[in-house]
């Protein structure tokens, strides 16, 4: 594992740069909502889940209650349930040790931490998440402290960074016909649920598209 930590850092670097820009816009948002700079940095340091942090603060900023903000964060992060299941077989040790290692899993880990044998490599996981953690926390600090110099994140197009980042990740995944079908199915499930459910649920439900893998495999068996 030690041998793959550095390659993990390298693999995570481009995502860490993009994540740092997103963190900067989170820092600006936190200040706009009335959060002290130190609290924004502390939140990024111990929560380390961009979409949930942004969802919670957006709700508070729009005048919503604390319960609604926490609920939105929980739904936004609900995708880590199926992702945690995906990583589980690759994390050794007792239950607490496994849970602790599971905390390092971020969206990008699904792609950069693969070991090429259907599982995940812990060195790649820890390395790629470590560099992303660094830029997530420092980017938040930059946005929270220098927010007034940065101005409106939307005027700079910073809100387009996160989806573009995931689009780049997704396109890298579309090698086989099955992956393409799953991506289309996942997108359609999510879009269909947007008007019907709170934000976060559509993404969680999209993980059901992976069951296509099950059906096809069974039909291929002679």
């Amino acid at each position, binding site marked *: 594992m030690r041998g793959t930590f550095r390659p993990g850092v390298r693999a995570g670097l481009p995502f860490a740069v993009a994540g740092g820009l997103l963190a900067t816009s989170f820092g600006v948002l936190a200040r706009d909502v009335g959060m002290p700079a130190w609290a924004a940095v502390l939140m990024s340091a111990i929560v380390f889940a961009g979409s949930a942090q942004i969802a919670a603060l957006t709700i508070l900023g729009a005048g919503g209650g604390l319960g609604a903000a926490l609920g939105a964060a929980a739904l936004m992060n609900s995708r880590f349930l199926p992702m945690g299941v995906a990583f589980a077989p690759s994390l050794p040790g007792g239950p607490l040790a496994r849970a602790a290692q599971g905390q390092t899993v971020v969206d990008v880990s699904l*792609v950069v931490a693969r070991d090429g044998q259907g599982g995940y490599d812990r060195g790649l996981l820890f390395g790629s998440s470590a560099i992303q953690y660094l830029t997530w926390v420092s980017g938040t600090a930059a946005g929270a402290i220098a927010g007034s110099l940065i101005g409106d994140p939307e005027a700079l197009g910073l809100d387009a960074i996160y989806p573009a980042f995931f689009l780049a990740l997704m396109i890298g995944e579309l090698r086989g016909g099955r992956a393409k079908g799953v*991506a289309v199915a996942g997108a359609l499930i999510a879009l269909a649920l*947007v008007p019907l459910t709170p*934000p976060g649920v559509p993404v969680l439900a999209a*993980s059901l598209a992976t069951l296509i893998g099950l059906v096809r*495999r069974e039909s291929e068996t002679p």
Partner: protein
Amino acid sequence: MSAATTWTLIGGCAAITAVLKGAGPIALGGRTLPPWFSSIVALMAPALFAALVVTQVLADGRELGVGADTAGVALAGVAAWRGASVITVVFVAAVTAAALRALA
């Protein structure tokens, strides 16, 4: 924002995230899972990333719609499809969205 709200928000988000990330590894860790499991795991990335992209680009709360960010991300998708690096892709998205908003 009051100090109590700030601390509850941070503590609550941290606890929720820790539980959601830890649940899978606690329940299923350290055992070998059947072959069908890895075929599902391999498809987790395209399913989740596609859903994250469409919800962020086309949804605002429970409403669907398009904006300058949609155009920026679409152009970024072309760049990604042609093999551009992640840095280039997010740069294209941000610059396009910013330029369209400046013109509007």
